[in-house]
């Protein structure tokens, strides 16, 4: 039998709470993290709401040594580094207890954060404006290059690379083993944790810092998702804008943050007497390989990911007490996901399935990691996190979505789903230790 993998620490930076204790209380209370956007002037934007991390409560510098490293981090890298520091503290893994070369990083990450955009895009746009020819609209590339070089601090170039968040995490944690970044959009966090599980199972590492991070509440990020028609435009009522499975849902609320877990080989966790939060028991992933934004009919590939995850854990559908849905709150996702879980659970009663995105927002590359964190803490504290803002049932989404209030329940095992644009489907299973 394969050796088990334990989750021994969790750190979160989210719109509803920083640190697992505050996050747990917010989930239990059904708090919304959605507000009017403060990160930039969004006047005239179709969507003017988001779930931001409160900068008055988040000081990246307090998690970083030496302090100047903060300057080299994008906002998303800083979130990941902070979440990893919290997870490490909870795991009580001391320096030297595990060979640094046996400590890996597996991180779901997206693009650049707003700080990078100020430095790169902001100055880039200024450079473009002054390099545009008088007689034609074509960009004068040599003039652009001169202007860009004059205006742009070279350190901002490195800050924008997607792999740098995982590099910073490794520097801070002295994790010298395999260091991977997964960029499968909305399923990245889930896949990164799944691939972290595999890194331990195949023997490449004994400890993995696994999770996801993202920070896309910037003009380009919000405009982009808005142009794709995926964002809620309920600007007059942000706290009620994210309403997965509700008939009046009109898209997701973009969020930002990170969750990192310390995954550990069972023997290593036992040898050092670690407190185990849950077993990371299974992982399944597939790709639709069909269309960019549409799923295969019958959600066939998503169904397969869920079944592969159950098989991987040696579990059956009947063992599952709770599903944390991808549950974005777009019209299409929630219908397709309902179809997928019903098909995957064919013959077994469908367990409660809630969307914590109703509270946290959609954290994109961090979503799956933050949602697994919500699932683990629910298992530890015997409650199912709710789907808030559920008022009008949608006949196409007939699930018990734990409407509006957390429910006391003891979970033996639970799933967390993530589906990305591009067709990547991923599912994780945790089991009570």
């Amino acid at each position: 039998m394969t050796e088990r993998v334990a989750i021994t620490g969790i750190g979160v930076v989210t719109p509803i709470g920083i640190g697992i204790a505050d996050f747990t209380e917010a989930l239990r209370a059904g708090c919304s993290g959605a507000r009017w956007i403060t990160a930039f002037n969004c006047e005239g934007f179709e969507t003017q709401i988001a779930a931001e991390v409160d900068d008055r409560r988040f000081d990246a510098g307090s998690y970083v040594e030496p302090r100047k490293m903060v300057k080299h981090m994008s906002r998303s890298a800083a979130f990941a580094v902070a979440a990893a520091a919290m997870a490490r503290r909870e795991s009580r893994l001391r320096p030297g207890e595990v060979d640094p070369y046996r400590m890996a990083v597996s991180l779901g990450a997206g693009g650049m954060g707003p700080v990078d955009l100020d430095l790169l895009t902001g100055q880039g746009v200024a450079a473009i404006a002054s390099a545009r020819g008088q007689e034609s609209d074509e960009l004068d590339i040599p003039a652009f290059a001169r202007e860009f070089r004059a205006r742009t601090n070279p350190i901002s170039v490195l800050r924008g690379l997607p792999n740098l968040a995982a590099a910073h995490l490794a520097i801070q944690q002295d994790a010298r083993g395999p260091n991977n970044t997964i960029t499968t959009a909305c399923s990245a966090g889930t896949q990164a944790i799944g691939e972290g599980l595999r890194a331990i199972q195949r023997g490449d590492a004994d400890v993995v810092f696994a999770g996801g991070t993202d920070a896309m509440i910037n003009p380009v990020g919000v405009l982009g998702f808005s142009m794709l028609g995926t964002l809620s435009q309920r600007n007059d009522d942000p706290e009620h804008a994210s309403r997965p499975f509700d008939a009046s849902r009109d898209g997701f609320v973009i969020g930002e943050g990170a969750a990192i877990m310390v995954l550990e080989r069972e023997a290593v966790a036992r040898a050092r007497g670690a407190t185990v939060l849950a077993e990371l028991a299974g992982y399944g992933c597939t790709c639709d390989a069909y269309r960019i934004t549409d799923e295969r009919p019958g959600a066939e590939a998503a169904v397969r990911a869920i079944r592969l995850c159950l098989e991987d854990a040696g579990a059956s559908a009947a063992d599952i007490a709770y599903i944390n849905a991808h549950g974005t709150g777009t019209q299409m996702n929630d219908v397709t996901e309902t179809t997928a879980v019903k098909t995957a659970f064919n013959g077994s009663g469908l367990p409660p399935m809630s969307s914590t995105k109703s509270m946290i927002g959609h954290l994109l590359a961090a979503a799956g990691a933050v949602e697994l964190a919500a699932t683990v803490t629910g298992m530890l504290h015997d409650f199912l996190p709710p789907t808030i803002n559920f008022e009008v049932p949608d006949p196409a989404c007939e699930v018990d979505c734990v409407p509006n209030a957390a429910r006391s329940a003891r979970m033996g095992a639970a799933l967390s789903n993530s589906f990305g644009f591009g067709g990547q489907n991923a599912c994780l299973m945790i089991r009570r230790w």
Partner: protein
Amino acid sequence: MPDDPSLVATGDLTGPVRGIVADVLMVSRADVQPDTSLGALGAESIDFLDLIFRIEEVIGKKVPVSRWEAFINARLPGADLSRAITLAIVVEFAEQERNRT
């Protein structure tokens, strides 16, 4: 303590460069003395790019990074660069670049 702008054109650049080094390495000015090793304060190669970019802003002209590298190789031959570069060395370079005609 504000730096007198007229001094930047002709005088000792120790004050402004000390401020830049403190900003770049996110330490206090008091931690940056003329013989302080920047490496000991955590500086790595990327930080010197940041440093040169900010020196350019103070002296008002572009400084190719290659010139910094040539200066260091000539000034500190064979030295352990992670230790040997001090505030005084950076000031010397900044003044040399400012005075270049």
